[in-house]
């Protein structure tokens, strides 16, 4: 009976969404703000990657909120998991095989390099701080898989995390004092398609890259600890 009722409710909801989706013209040029971003984005922000110009410049405040959400989740996770830190000793962990070990050692620096490349070039090519940071965190995940006993230093990761977020906020406040708007792009925009262009956008993305990388690595650290 309960299943039937929930099924009926689901059908009603799905029907409603389909009805409204039929009316909504997704993706056509009626998306007026989107059009504006495409036409004026490079000129106004200096970033050739339009997605980056929207994420960091036009809607930079949302990005500040999003890195805060990630920070909240990481802190919340460590607050909750911190309770279960006393674990049974002697739980056996299978040691990694030779192939895994060598593979991880080989890939670790390359992944760091790729991650850094992606967030440094966030304003020029696809990708950005979040993606680059996630790749860097995956390098640390490999380290946990392949190198037994190695761990990231919790204090270092927290400091990197905090400095990354503070860079974002401080840049915003400098913009507020110079340009009267929070997150105002006060640096020269430079020539599009060069590394040193788009004002504060690459600085913010590098800060986000470091922050997201160390944060996700910290989350992995907290989750892995459980089985050690």
């Amino acid at each position, binding site marked *: 009976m309960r299943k039937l009722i929930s099924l009926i409710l689901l059908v009603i909801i799905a029907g*409603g*969404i389909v*009805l*409204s*989706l039929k*009316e*909504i*013209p*997704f*993706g056509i040029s*009626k*998306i*007026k*703000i*989107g059009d*504006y*971003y495409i036409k004026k984005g490079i000129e*106004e922000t200096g970033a050739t990657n339009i997605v980056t110009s929207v994420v960091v*410049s*036009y*809607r*930079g*405040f*949302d990005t*500040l*909120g*999003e890195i*805060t*959400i990630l*920070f*909240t*989740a990481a*802190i*919340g*996770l*460590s*607050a*909750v998991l*911190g*309770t*279960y830190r006393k674990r049974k000793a002697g739980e056996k962990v299978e040691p990694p095989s030779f192939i895994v070990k060598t593979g991880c050692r080989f890939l670790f620096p390359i992944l760091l390099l790729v991650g850094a490349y992606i967030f440094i070039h966030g304003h020029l090519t696809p990708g950005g701080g979040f993606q680059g940071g996630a790749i860097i965190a995956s390098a640390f995940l490999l380290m946990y898989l392949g190198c037994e006993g190695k761990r990231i230093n919790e*204090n270092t990761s*927290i*400091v990197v*995390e*905090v400095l990354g*977020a*503070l860079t974002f*906020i401080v840049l*915003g*406040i400098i*913009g*507020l004092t110079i*340009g009267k*708007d*929070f*997150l*105002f*792009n006060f640096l020269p925009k430079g020539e599009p398609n060069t590394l040193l262009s788009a004002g504060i956008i690459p600085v913010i993305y590098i800060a986000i890259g470091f922050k997201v990388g160390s944060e996700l690595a910290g989350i992995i650290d907290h989750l892995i600890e459980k089985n050690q």
Partner: protein
Amino acid sequence: MVNPILLIVIPLGLAFVVPLFRFISKKIEKFIPFFALLANLIISLTLFPHVLEKPIHVSIGGFLPPLGINLVAGPLGILFAMLIALVGFLVSIYAFAYIKEKDQEKYHILYLLLLTGATGVVLTGDIFNLFVFFEILCISSYSLVAYFGDKPGIESAVKYLIQGAVGSSLVLIGIGLLYGQFGTLNMADIASNIHSVHSISVFIPLVLLITGFGVEAAIFPLNAWLPDAHSSAPSSISAILSGIAIEVGLYAIVRVVFTLFGASSILTFLLFLGVITLLIGELCAFNQENIKRMLAYSSIGQIGLIVFALSIGSLSGINGGLFQLVSHTLSKALLFLAAGYMIFRSGSMNISSFEGMGKKMPYTSFAFTIGAFSIVGLPPFIGFPGKFMILKAALFEQDILFTILVFLILLATIIEGAYFFRVVQTIYFKGEKSTPGQEREIAPLSVLIPVFIFVGLIVVIGIYPKLITEILESSASELLNRADYIKNILP
């Protein structure tokens, strides 16, 4: 004039700074929320007279509203920002002595983030930005509910997390549908075009948004998480969740219904939902033996009453609803703080363990009694003018429907009075003989100061409601004049 964005940036920046204090001294971190919220309180008080003349609009990143994100510090936003800062400030003083367990650093970070999220929700003028801050508010409250790490805490936090996450996804789908139709995320821009499309295609986003925000606002039938979460969280967090978090959820609903959609036709539905929420909350509260669960159910009831008042849709109705909201925030925060300390002393959440508290902890019991009387709506406390304004506004409609609903509200108030008086009776008039010779235990100053500031506010505003009616009236008219709201942002 101060830039209202500082209301968000100061607590956010300080929340990020807190982890650095582990390298200096562990003793400083508990003062960070105190200073951050004191700053917020001062800034919102200085903005207050400006806002009454004209709402302040701030663009971010140097882009004008439909392109970039903007903040709208109207009377309603500043009213909420002031409430958040005030309650957050007082509760941060309470936490000095109350939060001693576990990793306090994380508590203070999450606490600051929760209030930052709440402030962001009430100040932003962009629907997606509202969602982002709403997520900060929700995620930090999930983890704060589980802060003690005991079994009931984790269980209720997971319950809250699942329901909250479903609600947030619905909100996101709703926003996506709106963006697909209007190509913009600015609330004023959407509001100005809302009547230009087919009504079914805006009805679905409206339903999704109300349902999604309704989970946080604890409107029936979306409130199953609330009694568990509010009762197993630390008492200082229960005070914030009951006093701030559900009100902010309600703000989001009100903003969406009145400003974004201008949907006056859905108000009748919300009217019934409000009364049902009220009745169910009060009836459940009546049966509780656990003091914090009782207070949590009473919060559901009060939210129902506020929803009812706001859905009357007239200026005086919204006015009364907002007054009741302020009154509930102050009284319920006081009740949770006072009850929290009594639980701390008696070691049990059972109402029966409060026997003889009136002798053992005279000040805290006195404060609890004031809070209880205020929630019930006795003069001369702040709850009385609130309820009175709501009933007057409802009867002014001169509709048989409203008369019936008013009858039900009065019935709920009687139930409310019954269970609160039962607790007060237990505190003062029970068990004197069984526990003789108990010496008085005076709560520490960091508990008594915030508690008695709440008592002071409740009594002073109760006697002079005029102190806040001016900002309430302009907030109510901000909600009703959506044309003005649009015109101010998109000239």
